[in-house]
């Protein structure tokens, strides 16, 4: 009895299983049939595969614009502000911070330090006197010039005006200052050879 029932049910199932097998063909990718195209591959349908692809005129311009935009971005990135040239005088070289270079500070006796302090005081007084003498001498010279110009004014207006005019040919004026020894007449200085190691910075 149970065997007959199971055989009937199987038969029913088998009959019902046939149409689903046909439906299943749509969902299985491996199944190749001319009526059901698989979904995953490109939509290269028959009419599309026959003609060559058309290039639109807008494309090259679009590509050019894209290239320009990329170039502009690159330029913006490259536009770095120039590095400042370092001032060598303001950078303490590491040689000066070396510990091995320190001198042993000497011990000064009391008399020595006293004499140094007294000499500094004497020096400041001497220099002050020198400065006051200089200032006075300059004032006297200016007074002499003022008197001269007044006398000239009393004499003649034209000469006075000519005296007040600035001299355009005077500047630039150069004068060699005093050295320790006087110059040797007809001296030929020897050529000095040197290696120039100055650092040149370019921006």
């Amino acid at each position, binding site marked *: 009895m149970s065997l007959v029932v199971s055989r009937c049910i199987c038969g029913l199932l088998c009959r019902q299983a046939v149409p689903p097998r046909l439906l299943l063909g749509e969902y299985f990718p491996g199944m190749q049939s001319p009526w059901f195209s698989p979904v995953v591959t490109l939509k290269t349908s028959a009419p599309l595969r026959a003609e060559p692809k058309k290039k639109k005129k807008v494309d090259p311009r679009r590509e050019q614009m894209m290239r320009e935009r990329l170039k502009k971005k690159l330029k913006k990135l490259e536009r770095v502000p120039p590095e400042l040239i370092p001032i060598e005088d303001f950078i303490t070289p590491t040689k*000066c911070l*070396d510990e*091995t*270079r*320190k*001198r042993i*500070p*000497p011990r000064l006796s009391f008399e020595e330090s006293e004499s*140094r302090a007294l*000499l500094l005081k*004497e*020096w400041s007084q*001497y220099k002050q006197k020198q400065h006051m*003498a*200089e200032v006075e*001498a*300059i004032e*006297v*010279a200016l*007074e*002499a*010039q003022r*008197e*001269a*110009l007044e*006398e*000239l004014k009393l*004499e*003649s*207006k*034209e*000469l006075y005006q*000519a*005296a*007040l*005019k*600035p*001299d355009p040919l*005077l500047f630039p*004026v150069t*004068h060699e200052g*005093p*050295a*320790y*020894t*006087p*110059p*040797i007449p007809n001296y030929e200085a020897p050529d000095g050879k040197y290696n120039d190691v100055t650092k040149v910075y370019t921006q």
Partner: protein
Amino acid sequence: MAAPCRKMVSRSFPQLLTCFNRTAVGSAGCRRFSISPPGRATPQSNTAVERVTSPWTLMAAVCLQRLPVITADCSPIEQRFKQMMQQMELEKSLLSDHELRLMEDAERMSRKQGNEYDSDEEEGHGDQEIMLAQDLEDTWEQRFKSFQPAPRVRADLDKDLTSVQRCLADSLVLLAEQQVGAEKLWLLPQAAWQEGETLRQTAERALCSVTAADFKATFLGNAPCGVYKYKLPKAARTESSVGTKVFFFKAILADSAPGTAPNTALLWVKKSELQKYLKPAYMMKVDRFILSL
């Protein structure tokens, strides 16, 4: 413009009468300017009148200075201070490369003379072993001694007052002996002013003519630096000449080129020696603008 016109008119009013008695040239000159506004006509003729009849004769003189060529010697306090500063700066400084090298060499020498010395343990200072720092110092000393600088002080030249090379540490002023009136005096070279030139040009002319040698002088500006005026003795005074005004101009000797003519009496003197040669009143005025600092 109106005020000076009035002043000049009032000053030269008694001389205006003399103006009308002049030759036709003067009156023609006055009539020529009558086209321009009257305010401008009168001052020109008035200044011409004024300059001609001014009682003072104008002269320009040049104060030519040869500036110091060498540095002056230090005074005692300056020397003491210099030594003290050098000592203090040495104490506060760091050791230099050369000093470090000297110390290293001395150490290495003492190690070499010691018993346990292994030259393989030395670091690679090949050059320093061949040429010690002391040897370098000796070679520098030799080079320094082989150079002979010119002597700072030459006693024979210092005594020669006519030489430009004397007393190189001080600034010198040029004096010339000129005939003034009846006598010969030592003065700064001067010349009389002529029409149509400025006083500075007169001074340049004075330098060329009195010294008779071409000194390369740089004149410092158009303005005079001092004035000396003297009145003639009462016997010699006339209406037109009461005295002389001498205006001084400063100049710097650019090139001490020798080659002065021997017959012209020229002297190069320091400021302290000026008193021996100049008259007292003249000296007082000249002393003010010659700076010897």
